[in-house]
Every structure is written in C-alpha cells, then in structure tokens.
C-alpha cells in the first residue's frame, strides 16, 4: 500500500513506541502490539534515518526538516527530500509516527 506523504506535513513520534539512545545507537522499542511481528524485536535507524528522526518534533514541516538537513549535510535538497519522504513512509508503515494537524 502506497502511503501518501507531503512535504508540508508535520509528524511526531507515536506514543506506541519509545526511542532510546543507548551507547550512541538509536533504538526504537515497540510499546503496543502490531509494530514488530515477533517477540524480541527492536528497530535501529541508520545515520540518515537518525538525522531525520531527531528533527521530527511535531512542529516543523518535512520541507523545513529537509532544508535544515541540507544546511548540515552534503547532498542536494532534492536528494534529502527524497530521503525524508522515504523514511517517513517506512515509519508510518510501522505506526511509529503520528501526523500533527496544522490547525490542531
């Protein structure tokens, strides 16, 4: 199923997971069922994923996040936007993010 994500959307981590930094590794631990398929599963983010994750504060749009990352890292804004949208789709598939409505 294709998940529709726009650069104007705002997201924050879901309360169905806990993200923990343990010895420099960002680990996502499911709290409620249906996130991991098996017992004993956790999730780790790669460096790209982590850089994006840390900016998902429920206030910035994805566009703003990509622009901030473009200032800190090499790579075109277009490439970075692609990465941001890619990660968000993966996280949404796993119910790890919730959308924050702009007028809420």
């Amino acid at each position, binding site marked *: 199923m294709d998940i529709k994500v726009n650069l104007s959307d705002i997201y924050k981590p879901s309360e169905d997971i*806990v*993200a*923990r930094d*343990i*010895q*420099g*590794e960002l*680990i*996502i*631990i*499911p*709290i*409620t*069922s249906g996130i*991991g398929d*098996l*017992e*004993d*599963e*956790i*999730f*780790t*983010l*790669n*460096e*790209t*994923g982590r*850089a*994006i994750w840390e900016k998902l504060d429920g206030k910035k749009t994805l566009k703003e996040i990509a622009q901030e*990352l473009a200032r*800190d*890292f*090499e*790579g075109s804004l277009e*490439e*970075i936007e*692609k*990465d941001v949208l*890619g*990660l968000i789709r*993966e*996280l949404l598939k*796993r119910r790890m993010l919730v959308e924050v409505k702009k007028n809420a």
Partner: protein
Amino acid sequence: MVDKIATNEPYITKQRIDKAFLWKDNQPLLSSLDIELTERCNNNCIHCYINLPVDDLEARKKELTTDEIKGILKEAVSLGCISVRFTGGEPLLREDFEELYIFTRKLGLKVLIFTNATLITPHLAKLFSHIPPLKKIEVSVYGMKKESYEAITRTPGSFETAFRGINLLLEYKIPFVVKSALLPFNKDEIDEFEAWAAEIPWMDKPPTYSMFFDLRARGDGNKNELIKKLRVSPEEGLKILTRNKERYLKEMKEFCSKFMHPTGDKLFSCGLGCHSGCVDAYGNFQPCMMLRHPDFVYDLKNGSLKDALTNFFPKIREIKATNADYLSRCGKCFLKGLCEQCPAKSWMEYGALDTPVEYLCEVAHMQAKFLGLIKDNENAWEVRDWQERRDNFVVKKKME
C-alpha cells in the same frame, strides 16, 4: 555527523536484540536486570529454593514499594538497560504488578516474566496482548495430571488455575514457553509433557528442566534435607540430559570449546555482575540471582545501581579462593565450565564460598565420562592432558 545524507541503506532495520550485537565492546553498564518482585508464592513447591507463604506479612512488609521499584527501573534505563526479568516467588502476586509492568514497558524496557501462570486472568492476558512483553513469558509446569502437579505444588486447585492461565495465554496468542522441574512425582510424564509442549506455537526447542535443585537461598535446614532427597542421582540426571544424544553432544561440543578450562584461584569465573545483576524483593542488589551472601549484596536503599556496578561488584570479582581442598580440586579441574560448582552454590550448601559441592562434582564427572573426556575412576582435576582431550572431543564431534 554524516557527511552525506542520501544513502542506499535501509533507513530502519528490524533486529532481534540478542542477535544484533549492537554494542560489541561498548556494552552499556547495565544490559539486563532481574527483579524479584516478591519471595512469596501462592504455590508451596516441595523443591523450591525461595518460596515464602503468600500470607507472610513480615516478608510483605519488607518488600520494596511500587515507587522504590519504579526508581530502580528508571535508573536502569539511564544506564542503558534494555531488558528486565520479573521473577520471584510469584511476581504476579504483587497487587501493583500491572502498574509496574506498564511502567516498565513504557520506559522502553522489554520484560521477561517467570510465572506459574495461576494468576493470569483474562484482563492480564488482554494487557499482554495490547502491550506485549517483547520476551516470551516462561511458565513453570509441574505435571500433566492434577495428582502429580499438586503433589509438587502442595496447593489444592493449583493444577486447574495453572492450566486456565496457560489456556488464556494460548487464546490471546501471548508468546510463552514452558519448562519444568523433574521430581519423583512427575518424571514418568516427561514424554506426555514434551508432546504437549511441542504443540505450543512458541516452543522452538524442547522444554528445559531443573533437576539438580538448589538449596534454600536463605538457608533452611529441614527444607534443605528434603530438597537433597528430591535431587536426581547423577546417573538419572545423565539419562535425562542425553535423551536426545545428538542434541546433547552438539550442545556439549559448543559449550566445551568455549568454557571448559581450570580457573585456578579465581573464585568468580563467570563474569559476575558484569552488565547485569539481580535486585531482591527487599532492595538488595546481588551480582547474580543466586549469590545472597550478605557481604556481597549492595543495599540500593542507600546507594545506586551505578555505584554497585562500577565500584562494588568489580571488587567481588577479584576475590580469590583460599580453601586448600577447593584449590587442589576445583581450581585445577578442567570440567569447571561443565560443573555447576560456583561460590553461590557452595555458600548455599556449606556456608562457605569455596567448598567443592560434592553432588555437583559427581554430576559433572558423570557427564565427562559419558563424553569420553575422562576414564572410569579418574578425577578430572588430576588430568594433565586436558587440553588435548577437550580439543579431540570438540573436533571429533564436529566431524561426526
């Protein structure tokens, strides 16, 4: 910081925590923590090393409060802990179990529960279904029939309540495994038990058994005499261990290649209190679940997990054995890894940390003879070519 953000790697990876090797040499100070929520139990198992009566008010009064346990859990998380085992006694006996469980999971900890399943209710099963423990629950099952089960638990009605709890776990699809204690009352049911266990969807290997029972953790002369009588003989133990000879040899080969060697005067050869430990029901932090010697437990009411792990436990690990009998036998014995002898067990048996536990020595020798590591009438501590024998066994068994 990464130089270039766009990569072709997956952004997010699903991992089995035990197989992830995320930290290699950079493990967190505390990886896993055992918490004995209570020493009380609603069963009165004949062989048990720890159970106190459910209505032992004195024990209840001394137990850690909900807030004290929460404080310990929060500190554990700050030290990098990822997994907590709730055990006891029967951990579900605590009235605040549900509160503690939810709190623990919301901290981002995985929870392993050791239980007899008698107190699993539909409400609790629903909770485990909604907020999964992320570790398979471990259920002790004492028999397949009411007579055998209750001869061990000495608690009327416990057979029905245990199987009601187990059926709830099955109904709500809560991952769990079963294990047992082998006693004269149930040892003829082993095939029936294993056939039943094999039908449990989460049993990826046969159940484990306790049979070389530990004595009472806090001493108890009368009960200890009974426990000694209930232990299987070394011959019987070997027969049970080798029921599946192929699997036993495979496990032993792997085990021996890693752990089998003499340890000299080093008393603690097990990595005691490294990245783990056990909080007893009253707030004492033990470097392992079995070691309750008062000199080696750390009072968390007047300190912290961090202080125990960084200052207190390392000093214990340095302690040397001094008993001449131990030094001439256990210190030189290459079965040390195979043998369950350890300071905690020595202390429970004899009140000293470095006394050879004769029963465990016999069990280890019986296995070593079966594996061809020693000859009849040979004492393993007198074997000089132990490395060659170990290597031959490991290589030969690998080639078979």
